[in-house]
């Protein structure tokens, strides 16, 4: 075992529905080390949000969760709601995508902050208020003392997200999970929020799991990267390694789909097709139908899961062939076999 802060092993999440069982997460394993920023990237529906909701225990009662999530020495999966309280907001905190609806509209921002603080420690109201004002200052909200008594609807989107961040770090969590925190914001505001997160990470040493579908955002933020597809991790490694040396065709496709200097005047590479439904999961690698490198083996057996201990892990049968290629992006340029 590595000395990871958070260890996720073989996490599975299933949702029984009227039409069948949806296997949203199918065996995800990764480590999060102290103070590192782990980016999780993937298309909508690949399971990145569900994985992290499972870690926090915020899935609906009907969800069936399996596997193990350990923070330090403590197991998280399988705890009852009462037992989750000492983890949530205290050791692991989570911020969500839409700042417009994340905050309770009927209470002041200060009230909500104080609630978070006093939920996990004994503190007098005055003390808690002072701490809340400090937190608001920390995340960059001007006039924090006045703004303490403002309602969420009196803030702009970016400011609201900062308040949400303040609430999350109020009790010095070891892990901060950010689920697409900038997706709903303007680009300029995005930069500010990322800046705030960077600053917090520097000043408090909190490890961050950053979920997004935007690779560009991660380039400046993340230390390591996890690429997810159809409920599994398909590639993981240090961010420079994955960007420079992508070894899973899906990753190559993702990177190739980003407009860059060399795409001027050319068509963007696209990965044709759409992600599969996770209700009747077929045999083999789930990316095979869209993969230009797929062979028979890809259709019959799924590649082994990515091991968290490995530096640069890939879930692909043809990884060796990929490594041997010079120009990997070309696999998506035409559909002929290589």
């Amino acid at each position, binding site marked *: 075992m590595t000395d990871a802060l958070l260890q996720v092993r073989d996490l599975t999440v299933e949702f029984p529905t009227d039409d069948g069982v949806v296997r949203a997460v199918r065996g995800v394993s990764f480590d999060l080390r102290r103070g590192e920023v782990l980016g999780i990237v993937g298309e909508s529906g690949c399971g990145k949000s569900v994985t992290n909701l499972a870690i*926090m225990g*915020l899935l609906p009662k009907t969800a069936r969760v399996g596997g193990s999530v350990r923070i330090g020495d403590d197991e998280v999966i399988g705890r*009852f*709601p*009462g037992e*989750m*309280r*000492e*983890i*949530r*907001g*205290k050791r692991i*905190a*989570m911020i*969500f995508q*839409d700042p417009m*609806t*994340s*905050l*309770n*509209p*009927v*209470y002041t921002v200060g009230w909500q902050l104080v*609630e*978070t603080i006093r*939920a*996990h420690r004994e503190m007098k109201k005055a003390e808690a208020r002072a701490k809340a004002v400090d937190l608001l200052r920390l995340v960059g909200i001007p006039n924090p003392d006045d703004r303490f008594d403002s*309602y969420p*609807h009196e803030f702009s989107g970016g400011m609201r997200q900062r308040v*949400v961040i303040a*609430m*999350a770090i109020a009790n010095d969590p070891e892990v901060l999970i950010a689920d697409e925190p900038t997706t709903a914001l303007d680009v300029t505001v995005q930069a500010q929020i990322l800046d705030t997160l960077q600053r917090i990470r520097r000043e408090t040493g909190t490890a961050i799991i950053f979920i997004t579908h935007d690779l560009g955002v991660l380039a400046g933020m993340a230390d390591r990267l996890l690429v997810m597809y159809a409920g599994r991790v398909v590639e993981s490694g240090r961010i420079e390694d994955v960007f420079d040396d992508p070894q899973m065709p899906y990753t190559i496709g993702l990177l190739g789909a980003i407009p860059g200097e060399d795409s001027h005047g050319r068509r963007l590479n696209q990965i044709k097709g759409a992600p599969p439904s996770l209700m009747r999961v077929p045999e083999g690698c789930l990316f095979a139908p869209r993969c230009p490198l797929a062979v028979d083996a890809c259709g019959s057996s799924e590649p082994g899961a990515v091991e968290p201990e490995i530096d640069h892990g890939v879930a692909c049968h043809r990884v060796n062939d990929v490594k041997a290629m010079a120009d990997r992006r070309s696999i998506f340029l035409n559909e002929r076999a290589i």
Partner: protein
Amino acid sequence: MTAFIIRRLLIAVPVLFLASVFTFFLVINSGDPLENLRARPGISPQVIRNEEVRLGLDKPFVERYTTWAGNFVTGDLGNDMKNRPVWPQLWSAIKYTLRLVLIAELIAISIGLMIGIVSGVRQYSGFDYSTTFISFLFFSLPVFWFANLLKVFGAIKFNDWLENPGISVAFAVVITAFFGGSFYLIGRKRERLRIAKPGARFKWSGISLGVTALVMLSAMFYFKNREYGRFVKTLGSQPRDLADSLPSRVWSYVGHGILPVIVLFTISYAGYSRYMRASMLEQLNADHVRTARAKGISETRVILRHAFRNALIPIATIATLSWGGLIAGAVITERVFAWNGMGDFFLDSLSNPTPDPNRLLAFVMITATFTIVFNIVADIIYAILDPRIRVN
């Protein structure tokens, strides 16, 4: 905030005005106050004509309206057909009805909201299904039928029982088994959720069996050979003898009021519990509730301080709607239980034995005014509950 209230009051004025014109038009055309007179043989046309002039029936609409409106605004509601002033009668009727309606509404809100919350939190549970069914039942109850039912079972039969109280063995056994069984099931559920220790269900059911058996046994002995007066009253709204001591007066008020209040309660309750449930369900899935849970606060706090507090906001609109239903219910209930309230006043003014325009007008206007006032109150409550509204 004050600006908000003032604005609301200002809007109410033209609405009241329009309502009054509409009402006046309605009432003027609601039958002929002199129809009995006309039908009587041997009355000369001159007498009829005199009556018409006296009642102002010969004047054009606008003139009649302005005369009436002018009087109304200064507090003069005119006289009824028997030449008695309308206002004192109406006022005493209002007091009775208001008493009834407010108590019933308060109880309905309290119980309805509580059950709505639990129903929403425990969606699809046995509790949810049974309370939903009861709500539907109350929605579908014809008030007049239920009031009569209550009159017989709640009053006459109950009073009969009070005269010879006793608890049969069968009854005692059933009650004991019911409580014992329920606690067993509750204990088992708690065990499964690991809130209670294993084996708790036996302890719970055992204790409840013992306690209920004890209560039943002592009740059986206690109730033998005792004498009570006939407590539940079905006629009228208060005791005839006002010289009695305060406690016995209070007791009498309760005895008279309990059945009508129960009837009116069933009208309002269903709305509150169903809408609260729906509102809670919506809130429990809301983003801000997810954030609240992620903060690690206790589930109770999440439910009450976050979900419930937001779920309350749309309920304010329900309160106004139920007022109309309550007045309608009061009309019927007062007829069944012979209260001299507004409902009775209304029915009377329609056909006692001929329509009485002044009474009818006064009644409809007062009802409309109440509705508008309650609407404003609801708007204010809405603004108190939802800070986002206050900005406008």
